[in-house]
């Protein structure tokens, strides 16, 4: 590590380090990918990789990437859910890796649901 000679140096390291450990916090913004056997067979791994790449490209650190098992809608796999705090949870499917940048840009970042890929919307209980 370089010498820390001022408060600014310290704050810079703090910010960088907090980004790296963001996954250890409870994040309300989530992307949930269906990783049951059906999901994996339909290519959920590639979708997951695409999500991680896109998040890294856009430097979005405060998003929790979670997996879930089969929810019974196997013909629509790979399924991908987007949760934004205070909004409805939206399930997309079948998602191709090439759809991921659009979902992240439009929905996750800008809050506009990508209607042509929507499978279901789960109303926010609050």
């Amino acid at each position, binding site marked *: *590590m*370089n*010498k*820390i*000679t*001022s*408060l600014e140096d*310290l704050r810079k*390291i*703090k910010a*960088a*380090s*907090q*980004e*790296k*450990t*963001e*996954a*250890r*916090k*409870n*994040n309300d913004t989530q992307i949930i*990918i269906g*990783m*049951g*056997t059906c999901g*994996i067979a339909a290519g959920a791994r590639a979708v*997951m*990789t695409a999500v*991680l*790449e896109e*998040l*890294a490209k856009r430097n979005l*650190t405060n998003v*929790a*990437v*979670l*997996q*879930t*098992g089969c929810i019974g809608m196997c013909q629509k796999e790979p399924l991908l859910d987007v949760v934004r705090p205070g909004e409805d949870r939206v399930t997309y499917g079948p998602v191709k890796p090439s759809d991921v940048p659009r979902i992240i840009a439009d929905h996750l970042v800008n809050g506009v649901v990508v209607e042509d890929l929507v499978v279901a919307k789960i109303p926010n209980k609050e």
Partner: protein
Amino acid sequence: MALARAHVLVCTGTGCTASGARDILAKFGEEIKAKGLDKEISVVETGCQGFCEGGPLVIIYPEGTFYTHVKVEDVAEIVEEHLLKGRVVGRLLFKEPMTAEKVPNYSDIGFYKKQHRLVLKNCGHINPDSLEEYIGAEGYEALAKVLLTMTPEQVVEEMKKTGLRGRGGGGFPTGMKWMFCAKSPGPKKYIICNADEGDPGAFMDRSLLEGDPHAILEGMAIGAYAIGSDEGYIYCRAEYPLAIKRLKQAISQAEEAGLLGQNILGTGFNFSLHIKEGAGAFVCGEETALMASIEGRRGMPRPRPPFPAVKGLWDKPSNINNVETFANVPYIFRVGAEEYAKLGTEKSKGTKVFALTGKINNTGLAEVPMGITMREIIFDIGGGIIGGKKFKGVQIGGPSGGCMPEQLLDTPIDYDSLIAAGAMMGSGGLVVMDEDTCMVDLAKFFLTFTQSESCGKCTPCREGTKRMLEILTAITEGRGQEGDVEKLERLAKSIKAGALCALGQTAPNPILSTLRYFRDEYDAHIRDKKCPAGACTALIGYKITADCKGCGLCKKVCPVDAISGEMKGQHTIDPNKCIKCGACMSKCPFKAIVRG
């Protein structure tokens, strides 16, 4: 590497390491690589997470799933199921001992829910080998604030306002200690961290050093600035190799980053730190003996005054605080004295870390605000007594402390209420005892410890503890006589008044407090030659009653062939051969074997 979507935190505190955490850590690395997940998941080694009973512990974020008793064989399943497919491995989740309910999330576990973690906040959550992670957790902010915006006098004043009292045992106000040393004249002063944790059953200092070493360094640097010192020592016992390794690593990182050494943060403040490894003598936890040991002499106490603040290490003014005290310092200067003083009771501020051991379900570290009751610590956090047995007492403060019986369970805990109860805070070790513990035997256990650890310099401690131990041994072996208790009381009084250091002065405490609350047990040993708890082997025997069906199980299990009898006939125990192990009694399906 892109940002990791998941973090696998493996506890590598001494407890978990002893049960195989190193292999688990390595296996996670292998399995994750084999599944091609190594670019998206990071495996982090952390310090002690406090819940040692459940070790080895693994926490997986972002979900915060808490896995207990993880074995190397389980790792492949966790990687396949949880990390790849997102399915929690149910059989490894923690079960609440009282309700047998499975709890998936770390923060919902009763053990953690009631705790208030200020000092232990980073332990188990950051990688202790990473300075970046410590800074990310607001580390070294307090030092920067102190050096850039406060004068040493202001730091001492602020410390006095917090009301923080030394966490090592005596409970002397830390701010006062700093003030005495700051006012002591002389160009050279030392600041010392007492990491010679020696009480049986206490391990909070070790966990802090292992889990958050930079916090101790930061606390010491702030203290050094306050008293005008530029050099410090950490006296840590060599039995804590992991703590020493992590401390050394932390010191070299902080030096490299310019947070220790010359001209820290460009303020002109210099501070360097050394580690002194101790050989593990209990007496070296006493401040004057500790300093003698750093100087290379035999670790023996000397009379005070002069106090270390006047004449300490190498005759220079020195300030010595305990590990946990220093660990409080960065938090105090981040939030301010007023905010800190909101926690706790009138005369004892802040939190205290207790080490829970003995016959308790959730062995581990619990940090709670001062003023909480012992009942909350033992039953809500500790999960109650193993096997649903009856609570009998709790020894608090190790061999220098005393025991608290059931009727005191609802006393709010602080320094003064414990002294009033005949115990003391000590370092905060709690040894919980159930109905099977003999209180005379307990006093004997602690006295055996202080006796063998007595340095031998002063007569009251050297001879007095030996005589007390002899009397206790006689009582537990059925050779007790009328008048023994009075003799013990007289000896205890003389030792308390006459011993040179606090270790000698407090050595009779376990006897005095057991006498105070469990006098009837002493009487039963001496007059009736009986041990009510059935723990003193010389005073118990086993008999087979007429309920015996002659199944022969007891005969089979007896290790010394003391039981004879025909199949389907009455069996008997030969008292001359019997070693009173009790194996027959626990094996008998008809409850036909009784103590007596």
